[in-house]
């Protein structure tokens, strides 16, 4: 097993650092591009949600992300001290609506739930903790 973690602040520009770290981890463990792509998309959605919606003040907040590569699972644990938000409690998007009426809003969370094999959420004290797991074949 190997684990690596990163702490970013709640700015969109920080996402590139997370993507780079995940790329490095993937290369180190020879993870398939599809597995990495799914995790990259899921993380992009989750971290964007946090930076855009979790905070109502203008202060800087820390978001902590820990990646682990287990036997056949790539895992990311994302922790933030923003407003309570359980992405599993959000209804899926209405993908039958015509173009002009569509809102992309719910699609991000739909991607997270569809692309990951497991998503778990808990609120511990003042912190959101989201666990994403993607299985892969070794």
């Amino acid at each position, binding site marked *: 097993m190997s684990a690596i973690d990163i702490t970013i602040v709640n700015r*969109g*520009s920080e*996402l*590139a650092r997370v*993507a780079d770290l995940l790329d490095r981890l993937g290369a180190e463990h020879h993870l398939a*591009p*599809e597995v990495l*792509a*799914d995790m*990259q*998309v899921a993380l*992009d*959605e989750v*971290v*964007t949600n946090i930076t855009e919606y979790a905070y109502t003040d203008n202060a800087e907040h820390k978001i902590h992300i820990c990646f682990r590569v287990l036997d056949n699972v790539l895992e990311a644990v994302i922790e933030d001290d923003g407003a309570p938000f359980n992405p599993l409690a959000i209804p899926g*998007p209405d*993908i*039958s609506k015509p*173009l*002009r009426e*569509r809102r*992309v809003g719910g*699609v*991000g969370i*739909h*991607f997270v739930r*569809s*692309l990951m094999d497991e998503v778990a959420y808990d609120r511990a004290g003042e912190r959101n903790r989201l666990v994403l797991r993607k299985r892969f074949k070794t």
Partner: protein
Amino acid sequence: MDLLEEKVGGVTVVAVKGRIDSTTAPALGERLTASLAAPKVHVVLDLSRLEYISSAGFRILLLAAKRADETGSRFVLCGVSGKVRQLFDLGGFLDLFTIVGSREEGIAAAQ
């Protein structure tokens, strides 16, 4: 993400290489806004070398399609395959765009 823009006849072809995520989507948005600034233009977005696209990217593509609709322009996607096609499918986006197979078909469809 790298963007390569070419003019083929009266068609603007923008080829995307790499990833469209929340970090890179704004640059794609600026490029497409510029390409679709005039009315009745023809733009092909070649996604054959795209690795993946997140919802931030789809938001940009939807805005471009809407803009093209409103200005009598043509906005055609090509090279939507593999992981990228799966993401289009998951989000219910396949039917919302004009999507063709190859770049050549894209150029033909945009004219």
